[in-house]
């Protein structure tokens, strides 16, 4: 490991991750005249944001003029089961419309209303039609617009580069070490401001809508750097993933299907969601099929929304219960039917990629037949604890934004609030990271050398276990014991099994060269996966109630005393320390708004 093996770059701001949040942050920092590096694990434009389908939530009020930020804020807090960082939810609701309009000024082509404005579609948990969208490929549109904007802004993009460690000196971030997949060579970025925008942790479960990249790298980097993680028990299981054939299990089916009128039915043909209305939302949703159908047909003033548009946590649990009680389909799902509610032309226009996906992968024509769906791991609400205004973590100069940031979505994220989150807080993170620029503190070469040696260790373990086997074992543990329904015994089992997997992960062996070697990449990703899995299991064990996406069969009810309590995770020596911390209460006016309506 000669010094010649290492390339070094100096930047004002380094952004790790090039999805919507990372791109938006990098564009903003660059607009502040900072020298910016954008580092991404895949090729530019392939990040998980392209998978976002339904739309971006913003109270533009184009379709229903009654909408405004107050209603959006209220929906977000109620959807998050009052656990959200209220200030983030407020900033998000207030700034999202400007961020969407800005995207249009940069070239985005949203679907239109008849009078030529940005069209908005209804979605789960949103009182009014609120999601700016492009058919069912909104995320792809967003990525492409931001990608073009960023490229023309002169960002330095370092593609297929994975960061393995952050350097922190005296509580201040100082740099990051990574390797290029193509060559296996290391690269050191020295910078006084680093933005984590690495997305989520879904690859820790077997059934997931997430790609290979989603191994919780940013969460783990921040944790190792001494930052605090919050809300790690809140993992969103999206109600509608494909269940058949087995090769495609987990692939996302957009909530837009339900937004456009799709209904959920069990194997007996019963439209079961009417039976699962939570107390909090009673009166907000249709009580009969006739009322729900009238709403879908466009009579939205007199009728209420279908119960299929309840929040994701509620719908996922309902589906899980239907299946557990024997009313599931032969392949272990339930039916999602839009064919009987909308014309084939309408379905193909509004949901083109869903039509394509089912036709190609399952040989099912969704304009004629129902889809078989079931819950799939989708999104982590938890993440790095950040300041609501700046997105700065508890480590000076280290920012976190998008899915890797915590707090905004509370115990359950509303569909459509992620794309707008990326834009609103991406911009803020870029702005404040640029303001934080300055010469980074220096750190000893020996630390860099040690990190490189450690990363290369799997090549020394001749005959060591295959890393893919360990990854599969970890996914099985989390699926079985830290999935949609949890209990104390299962979570304790998960923790003890993860302990065993840590030992196995340390001894995995790699064959072949350092050039584009997925075995080696997996060996390194395993370290992040182990940290986020343990954090999730520990936080889930600590929260002795059910709230939003976190469901304990041994504590099935919500406990109001824990509503605003946060589980905080921090590295202390070699130990993962867990503690509870009370969140500041909502100001009286916002509390009144949530309780009494906007």
């Amino acid at each position: 490991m000669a010094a010649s093996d290492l390339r070094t770059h100096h930047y004002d701001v380094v952004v790790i991750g090039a999805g919507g949040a990372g791109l938006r942050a990098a564009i903003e920092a660059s607009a502040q005249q900072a020298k910016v590096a954008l580092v991404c694990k895949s090729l530019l434009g392939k990040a998980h944001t392209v998978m976002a389908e339904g739309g971006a939530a913003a109270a533009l009020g184009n379709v229903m003029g009654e909408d405004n930020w107050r209603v959006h804020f209220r929906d977000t807090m109620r959807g998050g089961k009052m656990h959200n960082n209220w200030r983030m939810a407020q900033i998000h609701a207030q700034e999202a419309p400007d961020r969407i309009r800005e995207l249009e000024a940069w070239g985005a082509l949203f679907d239109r209303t008849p009078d030529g404005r940005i069209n908005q579609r209804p979605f789960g948990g949103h009182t009014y039609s609120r999601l700016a969208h492009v058919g069912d490929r909104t995320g792809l549109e967003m990525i492409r617009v931001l990608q073009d904007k960023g490229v023309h802004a002169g960002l330095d993009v370092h593609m297929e580069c994975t960061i393995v460690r952050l350097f922190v000196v005296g509580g201040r971030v100082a740099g990051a070490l990574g390797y290029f997949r193509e060559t296996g060579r290391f690269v050191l970025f020295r910078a006084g401001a680093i933005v984590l925008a690495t997305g989520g942790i879904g690859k820790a479960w077997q059934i997931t809508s997430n790609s290979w990249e989603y191994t919780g790298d940013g969460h783990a980097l921040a944790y190792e750097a001494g930052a605090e993680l919050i809300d790690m028990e809140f993992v969103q299981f999206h109600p509608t993933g494909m269940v058949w054939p087995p090769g495609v299990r987990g692939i996302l089916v957009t909530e837009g299907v339900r937004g456009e009128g799709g209904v959920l039915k069990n194997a007996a043909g019963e439209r079961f969601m009417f039976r699962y209305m939570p107390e909090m939302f009673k009166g907000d949703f249709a009580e009969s099929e006739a009322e729900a159908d009238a709403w879908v047909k466009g009579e939205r003033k007199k009728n209420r929304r279908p119960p299929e548009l309840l929040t994701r946590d509620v719908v996922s649990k309902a589906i899980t219960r239907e299946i557990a009680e024997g009313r599931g389909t032969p392949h272990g799902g339930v039916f999602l039917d839009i064919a009987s509610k909308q014309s084939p032309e309408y379905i193909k226009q509004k949901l083109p990629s869903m039509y394509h996906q089912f036709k190609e992968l399952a040989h099912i024509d969704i304009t004629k037949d129902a889809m078989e769906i079931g819950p799939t791991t989708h999104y982590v609400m938890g993440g790095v604890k950040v300041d609501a205004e700046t997105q700065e973590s508890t480590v000076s100069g280290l920012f976190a934004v998008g899915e890797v940031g915590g707090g905004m979505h509370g115990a359950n994220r509303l569909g459509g609030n992620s794309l707008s989150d990326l834009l609103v807080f991406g911009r803020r993170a870029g702005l404040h990271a640029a303001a934080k620029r300055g010469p980074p503190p220096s750190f000893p070469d020996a630390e860099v050398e040690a990190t490189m040696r450690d990363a290369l260790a799997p090549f020394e373990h001749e005959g060591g276990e295959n890393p893919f086997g360990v990854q599969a074992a970890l996914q099985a543990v989390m699926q079985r014991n830290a999935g949609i329904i949890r209990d104390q015994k299962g979570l304790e089992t998960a923790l003890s099994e993860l302990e065993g997997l840590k030992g196995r992960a340390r001894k995995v062996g790699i064959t072949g060269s350092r050039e584009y070697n997925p075995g080696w990449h997996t060996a390194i990703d395993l370290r992040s996966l182990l940290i986020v899995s343990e954090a999730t299991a520990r936080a889930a064990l600590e929260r002795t109630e059910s709230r939003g996406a976190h469901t304990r069969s041994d504590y099935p009810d919500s406990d109001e005393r824990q509503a605003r309590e946060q589980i905080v995770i921090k590295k202390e020596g070699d130990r993962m320390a867990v503690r509870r911390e009370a969140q500041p209460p909502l100001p009286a006016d916002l509390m009144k708004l949530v309780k009494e309506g906007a």
Partner: protein
Amino acid sequence: MAGAEQRRFRLFRGTREGGELKEYQVAAGEGWVVLDAVHAIQAEQAPDLAVRWNCKAGKCGSCSAEINGKPRLMCMTRMSDYPADEPITVMPMKAFPVIKDLVTDVSWNYEVAKRIPAFQPRAPDNADGTWRMYQYEVERPQEFRKCIECFLCQDVCHVLRTHGKHDAFMGPAMLVRAAVYEMHPLDKAERHEHLRREGGIGYCNITKCCTEVCPESITITDNAIIPLKERVVDAHYDPLAALWRRLTAR
């Protein structure tokens, strides 16, 4: 595994310096796509087998390869479409240099994209800084925005694939990218000169191979390239049109 059947694969293993087809056996499950089999081989037999993938749902355009000679996405190619008693051959895209195994160096595309003149909107229509656009206006460029940048159209284009004119022709994928803005209702930037000179749009002789391989079914030749060719011709070779433009300052 329930419903598993033994299938044979021949995968390219090698680097920039060269390589060979290697044969693998895999127990394939029901409904598997080619990418599932490649992953199974990677996990159980060849952990250093290089392959790009992300979404596994045909939305990111990472897993492009040549399957039995046809440019396709591995994640959207079902194994049941091929005879069970014959091996399936997977090669990297031919129009780009191999990095390793099924992974190619597609960085050239990013360099070309960078040089396409950026989107430039007209002044806002309304005092609040917004524009009015109608659905029929946005649908045309929206077709091109479906592009997932898989570069399969670049791979099949004979100007790049056979003749290696990467320095003279931007290729169908990048013409689609330019078409997004050229046909954007708000855009007022000038790209004709770029398309004609650096883009080499004249190299395309509309054989429509690109349209055939597009996994997003974008009508690349008819809807993107031919209209762009017409605009370039109008701008540069039609004296009346050129004079009209000058007079009306368009």
